[in-house]
């Protein structure tokens, strides 16, 4: 039965070149409590593919096609979207939801379609030896936790022994990801960690912030998404918590999160894996080929925001991987399996980012068979409420790999054992 299924899949893939297009599904969410963050990402993702089609005539001469499917950040709808789009020859999935990512990891592994969870999803998927079809470059949550602590170490002159650090997190797989790493780091650096879960969707956080007010932690870290972010920043402002000691992960650092709080959000910090703003040569191209032609996705009002740029970045990495795949296999109409080879050989250098019109946009990194996680670097950005923009206040910081690598090894090996996976790349 399975062989038959594999043959059918192979036959479908062999028949695919007749369609002459490269299909990129976009599992987006433009509705529900997380829509404010889902919309800019989906717009950026779609606009980049429009740009590639309009400016370059597609990838390697073949037009790309976006298949958008609304998930509402809901895993059941995510499954429905996956099943309904995979038959169209989907090359890569980027669901922008840790819950849906967990759901899809076994499915894509069975179906042979690459999954790219850029800075979210299952951290230990960066071990390519175990997770053949899953990628999470350029960085992941455990790296994010380590970068935050490293940044705090820098602020405190290298010693945070006895300091109190609180983690405010979305009480879900997403928010729980950094806990293990932070616990390890607290052992290593001697800080006190307190955990404050916030339940979905996160509109009610009075008790958590009351606790923060009572415990007076030196730093508060946040793993939030959607409406939870703005509420947390508002509550922090209400209890007059010093904003420059409040650091969010890259999903808690967009304009949507700070603007509703107004002037009081000034000084709030967050990590980022791509630079914010529109001072990049690529925006001239976007204006010429996409915006001015009226082909912008959605309402077209998101350009230059943090999450729009991240959508662009995600699409850019997918397109670069597709180009790489075409180069490796010498065919323009690539299959999901070829796409995977392209992703595994991806090498993003400063020169390449310059050529793409996005100098210094993200970290330099390369992917290999064993390492699906990239370098793991991120910057710290700070919100300037007066100017209404994010300022980048650090270089790309490298995480503490000596703590994270053993954790990844441990977690991925447990997964491999549970699911009888043969290790690759030997």
């Amino acid at each position, binding site marked *: 039965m399975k062989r038959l299924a594999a043959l059918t899949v192979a036959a479908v893939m062999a028949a695919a070149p007749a369609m002459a297009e490269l299909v990129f599904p976009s599992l987006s969410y*433009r509705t529900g409590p997380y829509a404010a963050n889902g919309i800019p990402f989906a717009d950026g993702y779609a606009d980049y593919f429009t740009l590639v089609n309009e400016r370059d005539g597609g990838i390697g001469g073949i037009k790309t096609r976006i298949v958008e*499917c609304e998930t509402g950040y*809901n895993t059941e709808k995510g499954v429905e979207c996956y099943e*309904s789009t995979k*038959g169209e020859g989907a090359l890569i999935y980027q669901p922008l939801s840790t819950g849906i990512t*967990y759901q899809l990891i076994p*499915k894509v592994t*069975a179906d042979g379609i690459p999954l790219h969870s850029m800075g979210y999803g299952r951290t230990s998927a960066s071990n390519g030896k175990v997770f053949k079809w899953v990628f999470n470059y350029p960085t992941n949550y455990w790296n994010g936790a380590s970068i935050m602590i490293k940044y705090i170490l820098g602020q405190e002159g290298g010693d945070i022994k006895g300091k109190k650090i609180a983690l405010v997190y979305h009480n879900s797989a997403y928010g729980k990801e950094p806990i293990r790493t932070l616990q390890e780091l607290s052992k290593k650096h001697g800080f006190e960690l307190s955990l404050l879960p916030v339940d979905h969707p996160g509109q009610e956080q009075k008790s958590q912030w009351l606790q923060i007010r009572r415990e007076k932690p030196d730093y508060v870290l946040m793993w939030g998404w959607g409406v939870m972010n703005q509420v947390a920043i508002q509550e922090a402002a209400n209890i007059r918590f010093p904003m420059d000691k409040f650091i969010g992960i890259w999903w808690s650092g967009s304009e949507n999160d700070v603007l509703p709080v107004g002037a009081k959000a000034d000084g709030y910090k967050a990590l980022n894996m791509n630079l914010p703003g529109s001072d990049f040569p690529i925006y001239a191209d976007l204006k010429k080929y996409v915006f001015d032609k009226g082909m912008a996705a959605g309402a077209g009002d998101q350009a230059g925001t943090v999450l729009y740029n991240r959508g662009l970045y995600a699409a850019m990495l997918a397109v670069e991987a597709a180009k790489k795949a075409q180069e490796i296999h010498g065919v323009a109409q690539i299959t999901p399996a070829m796409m995977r080879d392209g992703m595994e050989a991806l090498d993003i250098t400063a020169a390449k980012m310059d050529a793409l019109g996005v100098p210094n946009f993200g970290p330099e990194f390369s992917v290999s068979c064993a390492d699906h996680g990239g370098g793991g670097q991120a910057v710290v950005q700070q919100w300037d409420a007066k100017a209404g923009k994010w300022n980048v206040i650090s270089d790309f910081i490298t995480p503490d790999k000596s703590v994270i690598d053993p954790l990844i090894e441990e977690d991925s090996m447990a997964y491999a054992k549970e699911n009888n996976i043969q290790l690759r790349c030997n």
Partner: protein
Amino acid sequence: MFYREAGDFNTSYKQDNQTFPIKFDRWRYYAVLAVAFGVVPFFINDYWANAVFVPFLIYTIAAIGLNILTGYCGQLSLGTGGFMAVGAYAVYKLMTAFPDVSIVIHVILAGGITAAVGVLFGLPSLRIKGFYLAVATLAAQFFLVWLFNRVPWFYNYSASGQISAPERTVVGVAVTGANTEAWAKYMISLVFVVACAWLARNLTRGTIGRKWMAIRDMDIAAEIIGVNPLTAKLSAFAVSSFFVGISGALFFSVYLGAVEVGEAFGIQKSFLVLFMIIIGGLGSIFGSFAGAAFLVLLPVLLKNTLVGGFGWATDLAAHFELVIVGGLIISFLIMEPHGLAQLWRVAKEKLRLWPFPH
């Protein structure tokens, strides 16, 4: 014409009490079963299984469960999501603790564990009624979700708090895990649905079901005629939770494969199942099927028509879906407060007279 009792003579008490008294209905029932078991599995693909049939069948079991408690015994419950979570976590713990035991046994045991938990949370029903009981079961909902999020033992100390189903087989065919064929998922759900519906139908028309209905219609009168409210109410909680637990176990292991409790078994799930039985029809097994079909299939159908057929933007379609489903629910409730099952009953009455209604 062909839909009538005339000419169909019952010669025994058993025949007189059969579920489908009309010959045409009986044949239709066998035909549906034959198609469901003999035809669909050969044509089903991943999309139809994962997006349509499997969720429909699993929600049907949950709706049957809640219908026993709310529709037959009159105890309003908002704890369905929490009880489904009990089923899911029970089957997960059993699956990982005893990998050699058949998954079918685990699912049934998970139903049993949920029944025990249901009885525990059903105890307040002896003292409080109506809306107040609904609030008490709401507490169960929040408590259970909090418990499964809070105590790492339930999710085997995994870093993310997610539980994921390992591969398990029934007579050599994988029914859980990523490599499950569409037809295997469909078949295991179907077998459980048919067994549950058959069990529920026979429970509700026997002594125990009559006791439940007596309690529902007027509990004081029921007590006077000799129905023990303690056993009647608690047995309703137990049986209802048993079905809900089975549906939760299948929901996690067969349908989704990986769940996180707050998202999959939150309060929305309780309301969804409650809406299913209200729209389908309280106190009707057929109503559980109809309600589940309405709320599971209609959004998928609308999405495919609006986005796939008319090419609308996905967000516009998602918003319109809410408007259309909401509008349909309101108009249904105004035109037929007793649900789709009542529509079906009226249609059957009409059919009996057709084509000469007086």
